[in-house]
């Protein structure tokens, strides 16, 4: 079973090799010019950079990341069920439908809570 994953390992090697070799070739072939303080400064539309380079940003992004982890895991839980759904429909109809209905219901309640709390509200 595991040997079907061997091509993926080989592809990882090829992809990494490609990325690294193009970077190296670029270093070897690229002509380096003169540097000066202006060239080394952060690009800000041609003006001198103002303020911090990594300013504070909205906490919403953090919330979105947390909610992503929660909901994405629940999505992944649905995959095994979806694969066997067609077969189990014939043999055990009630467990397979009601089981997932319960799961989706709980997921939806959680989602409604998030929505009501305004976690996904980006405009004030």
């Amino acid at each position, binding site marked *: 079973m595991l040997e079907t994953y061997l091509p*993926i390992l080989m592809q990882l090697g090829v*992809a990494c090799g490609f990325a690294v070799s193009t970077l190296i070739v670029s270093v070897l*072939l*690229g002509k380096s010019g003169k540097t000066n303080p202006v060239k080394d400064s952060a690009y800000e539309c041609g003006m001198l950079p103002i303020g911090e380079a990594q300013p504070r940003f909205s906490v919403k992004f953090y919330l979105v990341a947390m909610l*992503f982890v929660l909901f*994405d895991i629940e999505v992944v839980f649905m995959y095994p069920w979806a694969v066997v759904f067609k077969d189990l429909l014939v043999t055990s109809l009630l467990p397979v439908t009601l089981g997932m209905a319960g799961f989706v219901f709980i997921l939806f309640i959680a989602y409604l809570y998030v929505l009501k709390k305004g976690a996904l509200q980006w405009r004030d």
Partner: protein
Amino acid sequence: MLAAIDLFFLVSTMVKIVFFVMVVVMTLVAYTVYAERRFSAIIQDRVGPNRVGIPFTKISLAGLGQPIADGLKFLLKEDFTPKHVNTFYYWLAPALTMVPALMSAAVVPFGSEMAIPFGDEIYRVPLVIADINVGPVFVFAITSLSVYGIVIAGWSSNSKYSFFGGVRSSSQMISYEICMGLSIIPVIMILGELNLTKIVEAQSANGWLLLPAWGNGLSMQSWLLLIPVIISFVIFTISIFAETNRLPFDLPECETELVAGYHTEYSSMKFALFFLGEYAAMIIGSGIIVTLFLGGWSLPFGLSEHLLANKGGFWGIITPLIHFGCFMSKVVAFLLFFIWVRWSIPRFRYDQLMRLGWVFFFEIALANIVLTAIIMVVLR
């Protein structure tokens, strides 16, 4: 277990990887960029790149030499690392965006099984790099890794606009990951399979999910299931747009606000790797859409079944090549659609983008699963 892996398997896999990833996808990336520039020129009533042809002659070939010239230029540009960046991560980020985009090509089947007669034996080569039975899940797992590249690029650049671009992009990509995952659950429920090769074979025999016009697809159930399938298709396609940061959703790099977003501080080959990564992700995304909804490599109306029935002789080589051509033409059609949308639709606002992903698509995709289940239970 390792004894089961013979030399032929290793060699054929390597040939497939080099052929599909390095030759097909890379050429397609280069010419998609060219097509994008020409197509946008047509839409905006300009000429576009039409000069570069064969060097030192006046033959211009409608500018077909442009991608090669661009590639050379990227290699020869000054490889500049600004002083204010975090050097290690600054160098790591482009590679981290490029590698996942190429990795996800591994599970997309690009043709039917090839049977090569050699001596008195027939060697069978499935035209998919890794025939694993978790296809779509693998793709989601790998493509979501490219978020790291973008976040690290934005953070390590130590520049305001790069930083904002990186934060926006990561947030957008993970949001649409959920809709993407939810939207294909109806497809998996209908097909009862996660192996992309088997998904394509099932569609080849019994009608594509979006065109159930032959085989078992002519049943009442398939046509009723067309409703959830179309909903899935629309959500999935739009999510691919958002995942690849393409125009209606290109907030991470919107020029009017953020200069160029997370790759503002990048130049030469490092910039090119971001660019290649974006286009490679677009090509693989189109490949996944085609595989899941439009029958992958199969010809419409059951023609593939007739082709596959021809056994022996050179048919074992001709048939997969025809199927490969069919797959590529579908992918190219989708790429042109991507380009068309990019140059026709204006950008969303950030709150609209998040609302679309988290509120509309999430709810519709969830309701879509319930709808599919109801149709399948009623018509079982």
